[in-house]
């Protein structure tokens, strides 16, 4: 048997290699520094966070310096194009911000530094592999690397019951979803004889695509990805997991991994199954409407702010699905732009949640924000900025993102869907306003619902840097979005 040695092009995976190396370095550094000294595991170790951040920054630099153009390597398993570059930037940005908002949190909670950061970095590698996979197997590999790291991270504050519940639930349901995905991949392989996306699309366009096995496989893929992006009706895990997980990890999960799932979802469907568009567009149309509506309506009645943002993140996945349904260049650009904007605004909002939550995440209810504007005007103003952006009020990134998405929908003639979408964004305004009402319009009382009075908030330097970056991103993408839109437009898939 002749062995074909695939073309190995390491240059196309430099950023992934760098992040992996840093993950290992952080782990080793942690293992070889004495940390069992009095003061517990949490003492010292900020440097591990900063080292991880340097790794992310270096990887980002490498993404920028990679040559342009579309290039397949590793025997067609891997693709480097503008689309994957853009998504890698989103992942790296999300991870970078997460690390910055974690530094103080990790110290306060006394959790194990080294493994925490290295798991985040490994999850990032997984996401990047999902973004660059040109083959169902590669994508699946990336997905598992990302998911398994996240299962552990969700349960990282192991002394807290909710965190354990979060981790276990995520693991069980996540494995279930993985099963669906794998089954779908197997069926597609059975129907087409290949797992390569180009191969699949070539096969389908040559033969008749009425094959029920093919359709079945496609539907299972929708279920599997639908799970990972938390679309209704596959969203049940999201609120519990988001509520229980440590706040920085919740922020992380809602941005990067969700973007990664969308990256793979879009690539598989637009590059692998474009011939079936007539079938999956209707399916995803329904998913989009359900996801937006259910997410927003249930968020209305939440009191726990993390849970509220969990439902809000479901709703945001619905908006992105609207762009997905549009299935035009504007739509792909919209997905990219929206995920980038969402990364800025959501991690920004979670940053404030972490600061207000304090040690042990004691203050995570809407009532706990009462009078925040009186005590910490800057924190309240920053939070308002992120909330208005999430609600899609100009001049913020969230508005531009929604504008992008709905124009894509209207361009493809989905006016009904666009109307459902904008009405949903009005519904969402109500619960985002609830938080600003609490912050600005209620007198600060020390005895609100028996909670202890709010101690002064402590912003670490890293947190301030993260908030400045996020706020800058939200405003820049809202007021002068030209450069970002141009970037998103160049990065659409070639379909």
């Amino acid at each position, binding site marked *: 048997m002749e062995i074909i040695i695939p073309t190995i092009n390491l240059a196309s995976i430099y950023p992934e290699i760098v992040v992996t190396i840093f993950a290992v370095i952080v782990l080793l550094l942690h293992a070889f520094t004495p940390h069992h000294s009095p003061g517990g595991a949490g003492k010292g170790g900020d440097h591990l966070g900063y080292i991880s951040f340097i790794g992310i920054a270096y990887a980002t630099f490498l993404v920028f310096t990679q040559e342009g153009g579309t290039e397949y390597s590793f025997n067609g398993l891997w693709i480097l194009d503008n689309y994957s570059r853009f998504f890698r930037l989103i992942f790296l940005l999300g991870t970078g911000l997460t690390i910055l908002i974690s530094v103080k949190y990790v110290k306060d909670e006394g959790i194990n530094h080294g493994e925490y950061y290295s798991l985040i970095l490994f999850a990032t590698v997984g996401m990047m592999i999902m973004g660059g996979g040109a083959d169902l197997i590669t994508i699946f590999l990336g997905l598992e690397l990302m998911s398994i790291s996240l299962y552990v991270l969700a349960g990282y504050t192991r002394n807290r019951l909710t965190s354990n519940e979060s981790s276990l639930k995520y693991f069980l349901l996540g494995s279930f979803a993985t099963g669906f995905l794998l089954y779908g991949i197997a069926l597609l392989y059975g129907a087409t004889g290949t797992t390569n996306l180009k191969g699949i699309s070539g096969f389908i366009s040559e033969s008749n695509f009425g094959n029920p096995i093919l359709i079945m496989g496609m539907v299972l893929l929708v279920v599997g990805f639908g799970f990972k992006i938390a679309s209704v009706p596959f969203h049940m895990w999201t609120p519990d997991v988001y509520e229980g997980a440590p706040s920085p990890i919740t922020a992380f999960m809602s941005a990067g991994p969700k973007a990664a799932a969308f990256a793979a979802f879009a690539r598989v469907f637009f590059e692998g199954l474009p011939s079936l568009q007539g079938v999956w567009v209707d399916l995803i149309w329904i998913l989009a409407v359900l996801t937006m509506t259910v997410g927003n309506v249930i968020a209305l009645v939440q009191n726990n702010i993390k849970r509220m943002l969990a439902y809000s993140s479901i709703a945001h996945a619905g908006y992105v699905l609207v762009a997905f349904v549009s299935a035009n260049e504007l739509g792909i650009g919209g997905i990219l732009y929206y995920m980038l904007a969402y990364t800025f605004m959501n991690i920004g909002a979670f940053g404030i949640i972490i600061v207000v939550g304090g040690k042990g995440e004691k203050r995570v209810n809407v009532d706990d924000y009462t009078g925040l504007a009186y005590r910490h005007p800057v924190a309240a103003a920053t939070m308002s900025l992120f909330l208005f952006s999430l609600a899609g*009020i100009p001049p913020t990134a969230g*508005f531009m993102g929604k504008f992008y998405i709905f*124009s894509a929908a209207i*361009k493809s003639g989905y006016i009904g869907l*666009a109307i459902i979408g*904008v009405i949903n964004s*009005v519904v969402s*305004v109500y619960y985002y306003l609830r938080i600003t009402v609490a912050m600005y*319009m209620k007198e600060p009382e020390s005895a609100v619902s028996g909670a202890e009075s709010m101690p002064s908030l402590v912003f670490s330097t890293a947190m301030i840097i993260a908030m400045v970056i996020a706020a800058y991103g939200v405003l820049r993408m809202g007021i002068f979005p030209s450069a970002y*839109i141009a970037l998103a437009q160049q990065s659409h898939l070639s379909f």
Partner: protein
Amino acid sequence: MINFPILSVITYLPVVGILLILFINKGNYKLIQWIAFITAVVNFIISIPLYFNFDSKTWAMQFVEKMPWIEEFGISYHMGIDGISLLLVLMTTLLSALAILSTWNAVTERVKEYMISILFLETGMVGVFCSLDFFLFYVFWEVMLIPMYFIIGIWGGPRRVYAAVKFFIYTMSGSVLMLVAILVLYFINHSQTGVYTFNILDYYRLNLPFGVQFWLFLAFFLAFAIKVPMFPFHTWLPDAHVEAPTAGSVILAGVLLKMGTYGFLRFSLPMFPQATIDFIPFIAWLSLIGIIYGALLSIAQDDVKKLVAYSSVSHLGYCMLGMFALNAHGIQGSILQMINHGFSTGALFLMVGIIYERRHTRLISEYGGIWRVMPFFALLLLVVAFSSMGVPGTNGFVGELLILIGIFKLNVWYGAVATIGLILGAIYLLWMYQRVILGEITNDKNRHLNDMNFREYAYMIPILVFIIWIGIYPKPFLDKMQVSVEHLIEQIKYTKDIDAGEKREAKIEGVKGSRVQVAKGFYFNPRTLNLFYGNNNTDN
């Protein structure tokens, strides 16, 4: 034409004021107030040359500024004003300055945030009236919600949170549908001209099939009708007005409501002429209901501020009615009445604020005989009330007369019903005046009220000047808008190519009475809109 970007300067000067205020310690609130006030006054002074340099012989946009902003979507930063927006811009800058002055003592808590909100609001308001790019317009339109929301919600009355949230959600639900309509126009424009642009002036030249006009008109109608507010979309207004602090009410009544009527003039009428004509009976009856219903509600109020708030519903009904008369008198009257309402209702709110600051109640029953302790106040209130009810010699008379002439030209019955509203207006205002001002002092708490002080005169006198000036010699104001209004009417009457070559005249004569087929449009189906996009959808 001058090259100085005067419109941008008056739009963003308040932002400069905000930046200055940000650097001041919040304890030093006198300084903050002065900076805010001076910023607003300077802004007004800068805006005055707009009037003198305005060429009233052309309908074309003037003081135009245009530069690319988000080229990827064909969005440009495009500002300019014509005879329709000129006076509104000037009124905005004037009222903002007066509103800031009026809250010198009323707002003593969190002055810094308050002044920032008002200045931010001014930027949004001026921006709305000057935008000639749909995207830019929408951004300003929405951005304004944020400061107004905070003004009502933080410094408002007891039910402020409810009022603020209601205001925000009500307004936004109208405007998001407008956003969808804007995007539909954007793609229709591309399919007709091959250019992606949000330029409002380009949209005037579109030939829209009637079915499309019908739906787009409805979407815009919802956004603007909520803002105006027209019956039955008015329910947010009394809540917002009553809870808002004085300056908030003044700006809300004086400027924010005008954005709805301005929106109709700037977008709905010229862009959807056929739909406009077919909707005349619908709009006219809603306006008439608003006029009568608003006036009746005003009569029934026991709270002065609520009375004034409901009177706005009635007055704005006149503006809408005059506009949809679609003749020169009606539209000129409508625009002038927007200005008049800004001054007279703004002044009423200011005067309510003046007595509220002294007595901390707005109940009519708490007052009576005020003329004995505050004679100058009583005199001013009389003039302002006359202006609001349209007594000859005041601005209200000129506006309402023009509107009524316009309406009677359109349809005698509409005119007849509208006249009833005038009588009702006189009833609620004079009855209020009688109970609050005239008679003997019945409540001991009123015996030692001070008459108006210097600061209060300072913000009432300018308004009074305009009330009398427009009432006696309105020509300088009407001249500025005349050519633009005539051009607007031309645009509506202009023969449109509808449905590929078939010429159909937008018939203005055909609307006497109520035989208008609004139902014509119902065959329209959004999916068929796709056909108009034609080629641009196939490039995927």
